[in-house]
């Protein structure tokens, strides 16, 4: 197959393509188990294989994919034909950032392949967990296990050949209950990505058992709590919501394709302009953010992106100053030309596709906030006069240029004079991105830092779901509007 793909790549080069790459998925497997109130509602597995071809012709992209690899010539021809038509409407011909040919391989570290675990064992784990969640006050219990295992062979016309074997695992549990008004409240748990691997060995039943007790207890506290007041307070975001804040208002805002206007028809743009790099104070000096695809244990780490660029660890925001973007090879030349200077030296290794049948686009890797020097959660609370601790993503809505946002969370704890006073329900907060990050007044130390995964980041047309990670500490923001 590799030889056939290479021959087709060469053929299209001869036919006038300036660049060709092929991503062949010999196999991608998934397994999804969902137990809802003790019922195994979903016991599903999948297996897919196919080829995706990307062609650059006179600076325009064409893409073609099929699950039937029997006629590669037609598939490659289709991609070239698509690119030829695209070249008829081309305003800034794509010029890929430089990359030396890469011959490499990547295997995500894992000790136990989750697909090697018998289904009965997985169901048994979920059943035991479900029973532990089945407590007074709980009306809905949801346990989920999702696994993916894929092999990707990448070849391009510049001589690169890469093989990746990636396993990812996404476990979670959630409880819901009704308050006296019949309103539903929930609490959920997904484990922090700890350790150096990402296989079945990362599932620790003892941890899940302990967390099951916690989320039931907290959900029951919310059920009987008063409604979150409408107020202006310091908001102390725990990692369970800070990861999403980071995702929506830093990660997406710094994707270079969005900044250049390539997502305007769907996901939206970004308030960030090219002039902002090196000049915009995105937040307070306590804010340092990086895109780190080198962490071993996260779905945001993949060895090489789908341009064949090796994984990197790059600063995005350095002590409040915007310094970097999330980009692949295809946006660099255009961004630098539009800026009139070299803003981006090359690809940051962040071009990824969700499947063989989608073309790669700029995606987040692990967008992490560095831990700070403001101590533990307890210390931050002690130093907060009037605040609210917030945790658990319930709802998120962000402006089309990522300039403002509204989040609802699972639980809030009011803080008065350095101490937690009471739990509140229906807690929300909103803000404007840059003023919000300028109000960042405390960043927790390493003890508060957690790496969490995202299994469902949507972007692009045709739409793509991507998996990635966020490592974040506890963060406190001042003068935040809550309860609206």
């Amino acid at each position, binding site marked *: 197959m590799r030889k056939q793909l290479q021959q087709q790549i060469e053929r299209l080069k001869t036919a006038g393509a300036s660049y060709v790459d092929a991503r062949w998925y010999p196999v991608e497997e998934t397994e999804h188990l969902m137990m809802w109130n003790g019922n*195994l509602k979903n016991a*599903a597995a999948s*297996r897919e294989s196919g080829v995706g071809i990307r062609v650059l012709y006179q600076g325009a992209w064409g893409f073609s994919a099929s699950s039937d690899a029997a006629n590669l010539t037609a598939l490659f021809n289709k991609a070239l034909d698509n690119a030829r038509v695209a070249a008829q*409407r081309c305003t800034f011909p794509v010029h890929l950032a430089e990359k030396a040919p890469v011959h490499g391989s990547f295997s995500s570290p894992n000790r136990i392949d989750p697909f090697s675990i018998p289904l009965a064992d997985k169901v048994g784990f979920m059943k035991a967990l479900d029973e532990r969640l089945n407590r007074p006050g709980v009306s809905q219990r949801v346990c989920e296990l999702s696994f993916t295992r894929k092999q990707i062979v990448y070849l391009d016309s510049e001589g690169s050949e890469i093989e990746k074997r990636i396993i990812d695992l996404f476990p979670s549990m959630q409880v819901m209950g009704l308050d006296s008004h019949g*309103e539903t409240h929930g609490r959920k748990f997904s484990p922090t990505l700890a350790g150096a691997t990402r296989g079945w060995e990362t599932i620790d039943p003892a941890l899940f058992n302990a967390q099951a007790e916690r989320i039931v207890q907290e959900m029951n506290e919310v059920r009987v709590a008063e409604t979150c007041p409408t107020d202006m307070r310091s908001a102390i975001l725990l990692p369970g919501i800070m990861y999403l804040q980071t995702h929506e208002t830093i990660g997406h805002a710094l994707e270079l394709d969005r900044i250049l*206007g390539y997502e305007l028809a769907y996901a939206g743009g970004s308030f960030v302009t090219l002039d902002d790099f090196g000049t915009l104070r995105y937040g307070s000096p306590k804010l340092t953010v990086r895109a780190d695809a080198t962490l071993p244990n996260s779905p945001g780490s993949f060895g090489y992106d789908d341009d064949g660029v090796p994984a990197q660890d790059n600063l995005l925001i350095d002590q409040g100053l915007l310094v970097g973007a999330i980009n692949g090879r295809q946006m660099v030349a255009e961004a630098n030309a539009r800026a009139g200077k070299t803003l981006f030296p090359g690809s940051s290794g962040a071009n990824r596709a969700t499947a063989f049948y989608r073309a790669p686009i700029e995606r987040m890797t692990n967008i992490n906030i560095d831990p700070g020097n403001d101590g533990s959660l307890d210390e931050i609370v002690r130093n907060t006069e009037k605040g609210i601790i917030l945790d658990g993503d319930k709802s998120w809505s*962000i402006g089309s240029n990522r300039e403002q946002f509204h989040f609802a969370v699972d639980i809030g704890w009011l803080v008065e004079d350095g101490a937690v006073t009471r739990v509140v329900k229906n807690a929300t907060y909103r803000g404007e991105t840059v003023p919000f990050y300028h109000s960042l007044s405390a960043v927790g130390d390493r003890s508060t830092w957690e790496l969490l995964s995202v299994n469902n980041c949507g972007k692009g047309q045709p*739409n793509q779901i991507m998996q990635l990670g966020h490592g974040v500490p506890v963060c406190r923001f001042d003068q935040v509007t809550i309860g609206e």
Partner: protein
Amino acid sequence: MKEQILQTLHDLRSYALEKQIDAAFFLHEEESCLMRCANSAISLNTNEQLLRLEITAYEGRKRASFELITALGNMEEMQQGVDRAAEMVKHAQPLDYQPTMPAFSETCSDESGFDADLAGITNAARLEFFNQAVAGLEADEITLSGIFSSGVTTLAQISTCSEHCQYFKTTDAQISIVLSHVTYKWELLAEQSARQATDLDPSALHCDLAFLLEQYQQDTPCQLALGRYDVVFGSAAIAELLDIMNYIGFDGGSMKRGFSFISEDQVGQKVLSNRFTLIDDPTCLDTFPFQRDFMGMPRTPFPIFANGVFRSFTWSQDDADEFGTAPTGHTVMHKSLVLAGGNTQVSTLKELVDLPHSNDLLYIPSLHYLNIVNPSTGLITASSRFGALLLTKDGSVVVPYNVRITQSLLDIFGNRLAWLSQAQVVNNTSSSYGARNPTAIVVPAFVQVNDLEISHTNASY
């Protein structure tokens, strides 16, 4: 191709019967094309040909499924999939209810939604559509974005319960065209949905965009004051609100699980404005309907709200099995929602601007990033996007920056619902996540809701 698909299903059925496996087969084939524009260029031009086969095995109260993305001729791999599903179901855990297997009592074939001309539309035609839709409207600072997504979707089903099968084939196209300003960052949108080639009309999009462009080029954007406004929603916004109501309103399973703002005892009660009549209408071809659901149940027009009175929850087979009720023909990939029009004679944005009004009207054509804040109260939040206008009571038109609305669907479609336009339009709500599933909702072109609070206003786009 149809014969090959049906023969494949019959062969798989025979294989399962030989092995004494109770199984249902769901085949989805798509040929998808998507031309995407950005910065006035075609930024991506794609073509995907994919065949998915989902095999669900049953064993008493146990159920497990295995899905393949494969090629039609790969019978050996498909048979392995049957074996895999059968193996999985052995180790699955019994449900506390009896799941119903699809058992088709007669063979059904519906290709009424297929149009050969739309299926055969070329790259050149798509490009020409874009060129015509924005002819003369682009400028150095005003650039084109958008998609022309079209395709053919084939669904076919069989189960070991009977030799009858179901076959559906449809074509669709979804076009959205955005003109945006490079510096000011405003965005204007015009959309079109098509089920046949004759539905394609670039001049209609050109007309909409030209009118909006005129407003946006003549005025300086402003930040609106916070407060309460009479809001006119455009068709895209209305469709999105109905789409979310489908999830947290009248879906029976969601209601039983605590994700609905409507309770069981509200069936037959007045819940929304008497102007609000919503129906699931599979006879409306514009909605890419299913004439039968995936259990073989014939689908007929199904009233959901009649003059504000809540008529019925919709029930998929699995939810009906679990909660001990009767299914309503809603085991489908999407419903065919139609919101009845009202009496107000306004069908275009120009007519809306000219419509006499005693208060300022805030026109919101589209909602961005709508999400559910509290399903139990129907509370949602979203920002305006794509060409909002403030139509002042003195007759002038002001271009506002985007605003945020955080409101309950009970308020939006309740007593604050002032009027609905008589004219209806088809709003294509398809996404291209996962398997192709063309979806559209028929809605009034405009709906006015009075006294809605704007909780945030942008100082820029």
